[in-house]
């Protein structure tokens, strides 16, 4: 009915005015359709949007809970401090390095794995299951295992394996690196790449399997080299999936708290913004400053999320249009 009445003026015919009764019935119908949606919508607005508005307000306040008398309006001074304080500036820098390197590395390795798993071989299902396992370990547990069982310089598996390999060649002076204290950020990156590669692999594998095989076969029939097929057919098809994986990964990794907290407790330049914010309000009680840093994270996320939304939207529209 609604679509029909909307179309009438365009065809030039005079539209019969809907009676008052019909209009109120239509309105009731619209509300009946909206009703199932409202509880979820209202709940989310209250629990997520309202707190952010409060964060926004607090970010303009001078508020340290240990010095309640000094509470007052601060203007932009919290924001200035976020951008000038060496620790917080370092945290912004660390967040960017961490996110970019983890996303890129896990995307590349994930792509390689997806290409391998797209082929048929013996035990493919089991290999896929093994590959998903890193993603299915509780993040704190995974970080603990990396910290204590793998990276520990005296008894960790990595150094232990080095000792073993060197002993095979009769040497008892194996290299014993201590990644956690020598390159703590690399340790965090390593553990996160390990955990996020399966996620990228799964998304890219889904992309590969939705690839129209007839064009690939036509190309093969025409004698196209595997590399040419990958470069000109597979990669363009995968582009959206690469974008989606990268952007969703970025959104999750920007927010990472567990690995930083567990592996290094934010020491030696590994504190990213979420960890720095946690420390600023939980231990330093600097509520205004923490809120301003929180707003900075949101601004950064919005930039990434705009692209993510656009990618999701294009995939989504494709689906809706089918």
């Amino acid at each position, binding site marked *: 009915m609604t*679509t029909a009445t909307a179309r009438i003026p365009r065809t030039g015919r005079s539209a019969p005015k809907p009676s008052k009764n019909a209009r109120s019935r239509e309105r009731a119908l619209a509300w009946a*359709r909206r009703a199932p*949606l409202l509880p*979820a*919508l209202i*709940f*989310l607005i209250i629990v*997520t949007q*309202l*707190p*952010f508005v409060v964060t926004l307000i607090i970010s303009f306040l001078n508020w340290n809970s240990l010095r309640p008398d000094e509470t007052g309006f601060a203007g932009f001074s919290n924001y200035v401090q976020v951008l000038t304080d060496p620790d917080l500036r370092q945290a912004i820098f660390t967040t960017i390095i961490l996110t970019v390197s983890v996303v890129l590395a896990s995307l590349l390795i994930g792509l390689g*794995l997806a290409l391998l798993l797209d082929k*048929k*071989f*013996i035990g*493919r299902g089991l*290999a896929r299951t*093994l590959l*998903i396992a890193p*993603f299915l*370990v*509780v*993040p*704190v547990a*995974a970080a*603990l*295992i990396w*910290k*204590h*069982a*793998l990276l*520990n310089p005296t*008894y960790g598996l990595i150094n*232990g*394996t080095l000792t073993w390999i060197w002993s095979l060649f009769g040497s008892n002076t194996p290299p014993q690196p201590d990644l956690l204290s020598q390159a703590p950020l690399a340790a965090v990156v390593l553990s996160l790449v390990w955990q996020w*590669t*399966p996620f990228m692999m*799964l*998304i890219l594998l*889904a*992309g590969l399997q939705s690839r129209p*095989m*007839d064009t690939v076969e036509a190309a*093969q029939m025409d004698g196209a080299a595997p590399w040419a097929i990958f470069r000109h057919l597979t990669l363009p098809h995968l582009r959206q999936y690469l974008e*989606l994986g990268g952007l969703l990964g970025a959104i999750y990794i920007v*927010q990472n*708290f*567990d690995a930083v*907290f*567990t592996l290094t407790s934010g020491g030696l330049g590994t504190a990213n913004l*979420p960890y720095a914010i*946690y420390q600023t309000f939980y231990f330093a009680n600097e509520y205004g400053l923490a809120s301003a840093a*929180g707003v900075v*994270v949101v601004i950064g996320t919005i930039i990434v999320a705009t692209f993510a*939304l656009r*990618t*999701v*939207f294009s995939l*989504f529209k494709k689906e809706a249009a*089918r």
Partner: protein
Amino acid sequence: MSTLTPAAPRRSAPDTTALKAGSRRRGKSRMDPTRNNTAAGLAAWLLALLFATPVLWMILTSFHSETDAATNPPSIAANLTLDAYGEFFGASSGVSPWPPLINSATSSILSTVLVLVLAVPAAYALSIRPVKKWTDVMFFFLSTKMMPVVAAILPLFLFAKTVGALDNIWFLVLMYTSMNLPIAVWMMRSFLAEVPVEMLEAAQIDGASLLLTLRKVIAPVAMPGIAATALICFIFSWNELLLARVLTGVMAGTAPVFLTGFVSSQGLFLAKVCAAAVVISLPVLFAGFAAQDKLVQGLSLGAVK
């Protein structure tokens, strides 16, 4: 008319394409003419084992004694024992892991139930009988998920402190519900959209009531997807650390918060740390492998099938 026209063109089509894609994949992949499958298989297996090593090592170490666990070079062939598990479950350590495990189970299960209660009707309103501007609503849901937790955590903490909800599992349940609701709505919309519109029309023509249609037409098609959604929500709640760390403490601390107690522990407890990690990861591993097929769809917010 108005109830069916907006939905019909959109939802009758995907099924036929899905069917076509399915049959095409089934037909062609078998004769996928790639010659070096053995090499690819070997490489994939090597990498799979490399990626699984930390997990396998964690499991193996959890069955070693503390002295065998902390050796260099590693003692792979050491005797297996359940000592670390006995130690973890509080035989002599004094700190029982049961309260945090129960807190995690409570918060994860209850929030998942709450998510389903809110998300199923919402997904219905966004797919079966879509409201106007349903895409805008979908993207609003998604945008709330993209907001970092740190951007809202201080007000939530202050609110909980003021009303006395700090260290209260119910408040955590509400937080986890809001955290998972957007994903659940997105996932479930895509599952409900898979219900063939012809079946809905037929049910309507036969005069089936809404409840009957839900039970006989929609539920059978959408149930596996709804189950997968529930498992994924469970995983996210079970894994969550930041909110739990800030909003709970002694009484309502969850399993990940309990695990952070091991952050600075030294080599004396390596087997115990591994046992703890294994026990606390088990529910997630089970849920994850059970939801494997729908995992991608859930994690990519329903955008990828």
